[in-house]
């Protein structure tokens, strides 16, 4: 998709190598990406905010550092777009919600600090479904993002802006957040790589919470190697996140070209139906490609997989209803004035939240309310345990699993907006990994109906990112033409 032509570096690895070795200047890298944004952003609307001045200033700092022989970092000069639910100090962070429009956070998310230390350049804040609730980026208070491959179609969601930004060549890398598939589904629909790491591998400090036991930050990129580099740069223990795993950064890149010889790749025989034939065909070709590369394909069962959707749509709204209680017009964001505090809370929330956010808050409040807690939230938590047990059994027979990332290629804007349940079904194949906390990623694997991108999902046990990336790297090399 990228229009950065000639021999100028486009991948993060190439850009960083060239900048670090003083072959190209970070300022030129930034100007080329800003020019691409200028050309196509009007049609795509990937960004809530483009940080042109800040990016130029940061690029000049990096060029100065290189000029005096300082190490400019593993991501030196690489433009990166951030989903607009990650806090950036003094820079507006909206969650694509009117309730936070204009709010400037008093601190940076840990990932933002780590990116700065690695030499990356934040080029903008990307559009999302409001508070990351949605699968099409149509639930944004600031209007939808469009798919760079076909602007009559959605980019997926909720990290649709981040996926579109990389697919359109606006940034070499981006970060999204994934609560039920919000990185992997848009990655599949936009034809880029998207990764949900193991829960706790990347700090959530400064990621505005949707469902705290499910949320995880992860990378988008055009290549598997770029995603690996970015994930290594943002992972590792953070004392500011009490759920952060107590270990160092993930170690992936070193093993990226180890191949899949002898690896056991699982096919889930009782996977929920609903994937369209073009997607199923690519999945079969992915199994074939891995078999040809030396992997052993094994059948596994995950009987509770099919109940993931229900468990998720009770647990995630329950957590959201609690997390979003903080938007009451007192400490941050917008307020609608009223004579007393209770009236002010209600007026502020009624005016500030969009329809989908209200729907999920109400569903979650209901699932947690007296008399229904055991029947809904309590049972959903038990189903979650059942799903985790089923995956643990499957991983006794297989090292990684393969499924579709999205049931279909990108759909048209407006296709699913009137029926929430049809939108929720987009997450069928991605949800279980959030419930279990295990890593999963979508890797582009050819095209489907109407020539649109198809993504294959690779799933792995907790902290087995290296094995997952090895599998994805083989698929990347064997993409059907």
């Amino acid at each position, binding site marked *: 998709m990228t229009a950065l032509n000639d021999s100028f570096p486009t991948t993060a690895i190439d850009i960083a190598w060239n900048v670090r070795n003083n072959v190209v200047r970070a300022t030129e890298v930034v100007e080329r990406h800003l020019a691409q944004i200028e050309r196509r952003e009007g049609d795509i609307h990937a960004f809530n905010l483009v940080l042109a001045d800040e990016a130029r200033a940061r690029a000049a700092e990096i060029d100065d550092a290189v000029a005096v022989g300082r190490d400019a970092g593993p991501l030196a000069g690489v433009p990166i777009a951030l989903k607009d639910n990650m806090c950036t100090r003094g820079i507006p962070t909206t969650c694509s919600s009117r309730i936070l429009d204009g*709010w*400037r*956070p*008093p*601190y940076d998310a840990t990932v933002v600090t780590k990116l700065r230390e690695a030499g990356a350049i934040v080029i903008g804040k990307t559009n999302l479904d409001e508070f990351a609730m949605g699968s099409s980026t149509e639930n944004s208070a600031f209007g939808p993002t469009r798919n760079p491959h076909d602007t009559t179609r959605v980019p997926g969601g909720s990290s649709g802006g981040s996926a579109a930004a990389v697919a359109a060549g606006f940034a070499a890398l981006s970060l999204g957040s994934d609560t039920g598939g919000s990185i992997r589904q848009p990655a599949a629909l936009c034809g880029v790589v998207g990764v949900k790491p193991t*829960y*706790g591998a990347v700090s959530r400090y400064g990621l505005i919470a949707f469902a705290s*036991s499910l949320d995880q930050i992860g990378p988008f990129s055009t290549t598997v190697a770029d995603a690996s580099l970015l994930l290594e740069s943002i992972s590792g223990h953070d*004392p500011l996140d*009490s*759920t952060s*795993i107590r270990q160092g950064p993930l170690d992936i890149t070193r093993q990226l070209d180890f191949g899949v010889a002898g690896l056991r790749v699982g096919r889930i025989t009782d996977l929920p139906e609903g994937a369209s034939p073009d997607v199923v065909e690519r999945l079969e070709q992915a199994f074939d490609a891995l078999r040809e590369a030396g992997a052993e394909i094994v059948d596994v069962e995950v009987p509770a997989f*099919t*109940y993931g*959707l*229900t*468990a998720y749509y009770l647990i995630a709204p329950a957590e959201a*209803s609690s997390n979003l*209680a903080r938007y009451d*017009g*007192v*400490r*941050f*964001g*917008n*307020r609608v004035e*009223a*004579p*007393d*505090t*209770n*009236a*002010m809370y*209600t*007026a502020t*929330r009624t005016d500030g*939240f969009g329809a989908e956010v*209200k*729907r999920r*808050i*109400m*569903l979650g409040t*209901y699932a947690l*309310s007296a008399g229904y807690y055991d029947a*809904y939230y*309590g*049972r959903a*938590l*038990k*189903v979650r*345990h059942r799903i*985790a047990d089923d995956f643990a059994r499957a991983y006794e027979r297989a090292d990684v699993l393969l499924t579709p990332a999205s049931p279909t290629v990108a759909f048209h804007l407006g296709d699913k907006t009137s*029926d*929430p*349940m049809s939108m*929720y079904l987009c997450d069928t194949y991605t949800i279980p990994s959030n*419930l*279990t*906390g*295990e890593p999963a990623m979508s890797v582009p694997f050819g095209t489907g109906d109407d020539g649109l991108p198809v993504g294959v999902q690779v799933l792995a046990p907790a902290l087995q990112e290296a094995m997952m990336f090895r599998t994805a790297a083989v698929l990347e090399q064997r993409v059907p033409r």
Partner: protein
Amino acid sequence: MVVSDRITPEAVAKVAKLARLSLSDDELQHATHQLSDMLDHFADIDALDLDGVTPMTHPTPIANVMREDIEMDCLDRDEVLAAAPAAEDGRFRVPPIIGLDD
């Protein structure tokens, strides 16, 4: 839309009040239909035998996390208050708490 009666408009109104959301009559009817449809779909887990299964609230075992008792920087008060809708004398300013609500 298939109309289900898994949840009543009265129950939805109560939930909205708990969540500090105000719904018009039309919105209440619409929300009732949508929530009923969702609960219909979510009834697929009703048939599961979950006796003896422990609820799983979190992907990893959670324990209290303590840190060394040393002085650390915290957020700048003025910067925090500058991001609030209203502040006065170093505090968040809100309308009266008692008196006018039902």
